[in-house]
């Protein structure tokens, strides 16, 4: 799922400065799980914006705003409220925000920042394990992805910056290379790491991605 965090409320107000009427769109999938754009957060946002003098013309939580045709349909159902609105605030990831923006002609504001494609460990515990690089190589590393989980995406071993098993970039995070080592040692496959792995094919994941009629 796409992990999001709500933008700082003061920054949101600055962004929407001069807008007196706002329609709010939430997301029934990822942003609901992240508690950044579900029913509850949309209701809270309505209240907070009202307190700041904004008129809330309406709100809706779309099942999955990234489904573009569904989003258009839901927005059409809310046409009357949206027509009276200067701007739409979307509490969803960047995909959902753009899906809304392409369906309407008024201004659209991002209420959330998209952080990463996340695994859900348990309630409110999200971990980035895949960065959709287009060229999966995890078979070489005991099923653990150094492209995503090492901040330097190193393919041939750890950097020299790890201190007591922690990452040089963030002392709260484990050095993923030690995790790879432990797992491969346990499965007696450490020898596989002795190979020099070739450079990454960054061309494989050319952005923006488009798939038409299947891959």
């Amino acid at each position: 799922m796409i992990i999001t965090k709500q933008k700082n409320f003061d920054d949101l107000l600055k962004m929407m400065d001069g807008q007196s009427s706002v329609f709010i769109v939430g997301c029934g999938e990822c942003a609901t799980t992240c508690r950044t754009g579900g029913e509850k957060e949309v209701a809270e946002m309505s209240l907070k914006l009202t307190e700041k003098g904004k008129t809330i013309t309406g709100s809706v939580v779309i099942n999955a705003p990234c489904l573009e045709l569904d989003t258009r349909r839901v927005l059409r159902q809310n046409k009357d409220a949206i027509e009276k609105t200067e701007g739409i605030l979307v509490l969803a990831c960047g995909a959902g925000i753009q899906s809304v923006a392409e369906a309407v002609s008024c201004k659209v504001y991002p209420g959330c920042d998209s952080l990463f494609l996340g695994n859900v460990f348990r309630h409110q515990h999200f971990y980035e394990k895949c960065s959709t690089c287009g060229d999966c190589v995890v078979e070489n590393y005991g099923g653990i992805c150094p492209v995503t989980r090492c901040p330097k995406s190193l393919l041939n071993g750890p950097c020299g910056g790890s201190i007591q098993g922690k990452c040089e970039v963030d002392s709260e995070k484990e050095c993923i290379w030690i995790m790879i080592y432990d797992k491969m040692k346990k499965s007696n496959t450490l020898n596989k790491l002795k190979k020099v792995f070739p450079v990454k094919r960054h061309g494989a994941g050319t952005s923006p991605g488009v798939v038409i009629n299947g891959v």
Partner: protein
Amino acid sequence: MGFKEAFDKKNFVVTVEVPPPKGTNVIPNLDIAKRLLGRVDGINVTDNQRGIMRMCPLAFSHLLKEMGHNPIMQICARDRNRLALQSDILGASALGIENICIMTGDHPKLGDHPDAKPVFDIDSIQLIKVVKELENGFSMAGKKIDGAPKFLVGGVVNPFFEPFELELIKLEKKIGAGAEFFQTQPFFERESLERFFEKVSNIDTKFLIGVSPLKSVKMISFLNEKVLARKIPENIAKRIEASDNQIEEGVRLSAEFIREIKGIINGSAGSPCRGIHIMPIGIESHLPHLLKEAGL
């Protein structure tokens, strides 16, 4: 004598680190370099060390070369993609630079431009291989190049990485890729050093043992907290703290340690540990004095 030649002819090879300036004023650091002429076997020129922006090592290495030094140009993989790295390597060769030292590079988040895009297109081992491909007359894309460079290629090793078995795997890969010498992270005491000598005794390469003069107690705290996997022993911190002139004491301690290392190396014939690499973080101007105190 070239840097490569120094390994063939000398028992104790000495390199020092002199960073390019932060700005266009090259005079102060070139003045330091001038005072080191004939006293060191190579000057390592850092590449935006710790992610802090400075002049490019290519330009500064060239100036050192013109002065008569053997620059060892550092190239880190943090800031440039494979096109830019190959370009700079060819440029270095054209400017007469014969030695390069390749490393991953600290993450930009640790430096003074924390919002910079971390590039890390290729890693240090892959980059060593790229240099060898260029030396064989081919680019990474497999295209023939007109005129091939020739370098003595080095790398870095962290003697304090745990598990060390993983560091050894990486080290062997670097050697296999074509690296011929290695600088280590700094040592501060004999015990760790002797352990390292033991651990690498059968490896067929050349190590330059890292040494850093400590300029203050504040620096010790910083290094212990943010940089070093193995902490600086308390007795060293105490000696520096008790001194009226902390820099002077740090230099003295370092000089004593260098003499000790020299003794160990002289007594370990056949060891791959072949000399020292001095990293005088922020006190480059004390290098000539440090060398004198160390009897070099």
